[in-house]
């Protein structure tokens, strides 16, 4: 509440008053009167400040608007810029103290203009700035931070007006080159089903002539051949069906790793959205299956603008999924979650509502079986009880645990468990950081050195989903697998079986492997191990080699059964998908 300036003046005033009172019998009342005057003035200012803040706070209202050139929007697009307008107002008779307003803009966007700060004047404030959405997903506006100060700078109060608003950020609309038109170029709007298939239907191209069967409509009778052969012959036309393409998007933990918006999942979503838009622009059908280690969600292939928007929304939802590990390092996560909690929930972290008993770590320290033992524990078992750092750490953890328990709505039982159980606390912290879209590290390897994100369950889920799509498929379809299968070479047999079934039914399968941005793509010269390299460099080079070897192994393995394997880093994934669709059409025309 008091700023350093306020504390200094208060201490000086108290000192002057006390000293002056002691000396007052000899030296008169000059000093105590000066001190009391300062104290009385500080008290008056404090009361005015308190009433101004406390009285007005519940009456303040916050409005937020995200606009583009045409007006307010509720859906944003990746790669586009938008104006954010924040208005604060409150109708009250009591005057608000001097206040600064700061909008907390999301982690996933970049500010490209304007200021996120402003001054509240006359209980009103307006701030306007411009953001650029960098990748598909969601962005979350938390609210605004208000810092109240008196006019002298003696008191400071910080509150956060929370107004969480989530805006979906759809993947970028593809450019013209991806919208490949394949036929009937003179038509503005192509009819559905421009692709001829060798099946009888109601198209315009002749498929074959056959003998008349009772019930055939007279208009289908081919009169000239009938006259030549002296029997009724019926014309059969080709069917006109669209080519269907289904995207299998891997949303498992392994592709979520990395900075939000720049990880493998973001690239996968970008490819899927671009290809889906190009497919739907040709009035073909596009479907989506997204899967993780546990389940797959199917969106049936369809066409139309509404379906496209639905697909993009779903891709945006999965594009911002945060990674989570079952083994989280609670200490590291706490270092990240604590400033976020103090920034977004300052009043809930305040000791007035979130208290701490300083003697708890001394009387009831955490038992040895719930923490890592150190040498000092063995040598000086009592030292931990007297450690100031352990005391501060326990106080911080209690405050954070109380906030997490409140958010979970689980009450003091969860608070207590969060204070004692590191694993539960770590998972809750991951959830908290993910909910606020804050990036956080996840452990990649367990204590045995095993990669934590190689999930063979994912392969099972993908195989089942592929078989289901084959089962429900029409004609020859294109299945695009956007899946991370590294480190899973030994567990690919179910997927091989499913792909064989798909290929056996004349479908085509493409595998696009996500590729980390910091690893050179295949084909580029790799850095060799050199004697002068540090351990970290050696590890990095080894990891790159391992990635390349894994990719080549998958390419060889699945290439044998007719799957085209490319990596997402090459930038030609969308073109390849469109080429394959074109081949499917041509395959349908050839007889």
């Amino acid at each position, binding site marked *: 509440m008091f700023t350093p300036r306020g504390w200094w003046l208060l201490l000086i005033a108290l000192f002057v008053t006390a000293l002056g009172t002691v000396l007052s*019998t*000899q*030296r008169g009342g000059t000093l105590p009167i000066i001190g009391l005057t300062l104290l009385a003035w500080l008290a008056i200012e404090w009361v005015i400040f308190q009433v101004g803040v406390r009285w007005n706070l519940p009456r303040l209202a916050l409005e937020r608007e995200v606009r583009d050139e045409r007006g307010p929007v509720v859906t944003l697009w990746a790669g586009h810029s938008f104006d954010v307008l924040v208005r604060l107002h409150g109708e009250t008779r009591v005057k608000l103290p001097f206040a600064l307003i700061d909008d907390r803009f999301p982690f996933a966007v970049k500010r490209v203009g304007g200021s996120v700060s402003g*001054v509240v004047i006359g209980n009103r404030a307006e701030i306007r700035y411009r953001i650029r959405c960098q990748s598909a997903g969601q962005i979350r506006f938390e609210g605004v931070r208000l810092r109240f100060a008196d*006019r002298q700078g003696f008191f400071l109060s910080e509150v956060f007006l929370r107004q969480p608003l989530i805006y979906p950020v759809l993947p970028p609309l593809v450019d013209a080159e991806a919208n490949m038109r394949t036929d009937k170029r003179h038509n503005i709007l192509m009819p559905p089903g421009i692709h001829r298939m060798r099946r009888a239907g109601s198209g315009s191209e002749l498929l074959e002539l056959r003998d008349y069967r009772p019930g055939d409509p007279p208009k289908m009778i081919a009169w000239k051949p009938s006259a030549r052969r002296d029997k009724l012959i019926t014309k059969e036309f080709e069917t006109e069906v669209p080519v269907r393409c289904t995207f299998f998007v891997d949303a498992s933990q392994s592709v979520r790793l990395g900075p939000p918006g720049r990880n493998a999942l973001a690239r996968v979503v970008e490819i899927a959205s671009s290809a889906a838009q190009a497919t739907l622009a040709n009035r073909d059908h596009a479907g989506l299956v997204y899967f993780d280690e546990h389940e797959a969600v199917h969106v049936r292939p369809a066409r139309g603008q509404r379906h496209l928007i639905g697909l993009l929304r779903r891709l945006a939802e999965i594009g911002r999924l945060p990674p989570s590990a079952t083994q989280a390092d609670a200490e590291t996560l706490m270092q990240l979650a604590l400033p976020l909690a*103090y920034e977004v929930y300052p009043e809930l972290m305040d000791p007035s509502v979130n208290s701490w008993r300083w003697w708890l770590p001394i009387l*009831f320290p955490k038992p040895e079986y719930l923490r890592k033992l150190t040498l000092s524990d063995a040598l000086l078992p009592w030292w931990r009880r007297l450690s100031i750092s352990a005391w501060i750490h326990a106080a911080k953890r209690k405050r954070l645990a109380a906030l997490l328990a*409140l958010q979970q709505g689980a009450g003091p039982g969860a608070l207590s468990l969060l*204070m004692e159980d590191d694993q539960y606390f770590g998972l809750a912290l991951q959830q908290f950081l993910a909910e606020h879209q804050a990036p956080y590290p996840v452990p990649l390897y367990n204590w045995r050195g095993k990669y934590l994100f190689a999930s063979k369950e994912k392969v099972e889920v993908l195989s089942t989903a592929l078989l289901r799509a084959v089962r429900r498929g029409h004609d020859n379809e294109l299945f695009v697998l956007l899946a991370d299968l590294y480190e899973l070479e030994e567990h690919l047999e179910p997927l091989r079986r499913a792909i064989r079934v798909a290929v056996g039914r004349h479908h085509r399968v493409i595998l696009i492997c996500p590729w980390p941005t910091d690893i050179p793509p295949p084909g580029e010269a790799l850095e060799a191990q050199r004697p002068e390299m540090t351990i970290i460099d050696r590890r990095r080079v080894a990891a790159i080699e391992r990635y390349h070897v894994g990719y080549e192994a998958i390419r060889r393995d699945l290439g044998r059964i007719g799957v085209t394997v490319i990596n997402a880093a090459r930038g030609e994934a969308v073109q390849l998908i469109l080429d394959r669709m074109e081949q499917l059409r041509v395959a349908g025309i050839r007889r």
Partner: protein
Amino acid sequence: MSSQPAAETAKPEQDLTIRAYLFAGSAGLLLLWMGLSQKYGTLALLPVLLGAVGLVSFLLPARFSWLQPGRMQMASRSLPILVLLVVIVFDVLFGISWMGETSLFDGTDLLIAAGVITYVAAQYRLFGLGTNVVPTDTRFRLDRQGGDPPEARPAHAVTKSEWIGLAVALPAAVIAAQLLWWWIVAAMEWPGQTFEFPTRRFGIPETPWRLFSLIWLLGVGTLLLRGGAGLLWAYRLRRDEARMFQQDVLWTETRGEQRRISRWLAWLRRKQARKSGRLA
């Protein structure tokens, strides 16, 4: 801070506001000099000059960049405290008063108190306008490094009511201080009390009595203020704050049992994790 054009248009307003506070500060120093010169003569100029240095740093025009007015203003932030310390030292070294044992009203004290408070208020408001009103926040943030820089108050945020408030608060503080001091030193006539010299009340010498009275006064005052603010705080609690408060109370009441149960559960989880190989 706010956008750049607003800051540029606010420049003349800022000059006016700063001049007004400079005038108020100078008036305060004048009152202080008038009061102190009656007690310490020429020496009274020293605190006044110190205070004037703090004010002068705001008089420097921006074109005198070689003088670095901003840095001078920052450097002068401790001058109000220094002025008070000098007054303390003068009073301890040279302050002699025949009215020390009495509760008589001394006009000089009133003048000095009014001067000090006017100068201090004006000087700190100048700091708020010129250097910072919100201190530097060095707390670690996830989205930026170095925390928040200090923020000054823009001149267009200054309103007329601010001046009215100051004109009411300062005399109120001076009068309140006089009354409080009078309450502390006033010799109350108790039935059966006999005159003693030096003065004793209930057998307690005058100086400790005044000190106890002061402590009692400040303690009760603080309690009353805190109580009032606490009531207002409780009355205006937001929903999530109230829920947190209740959760905290419930945890405080049951923390012993909760701790035992939670530790047992945590131990069970660790044991299961060790068995499954997830933990070393």
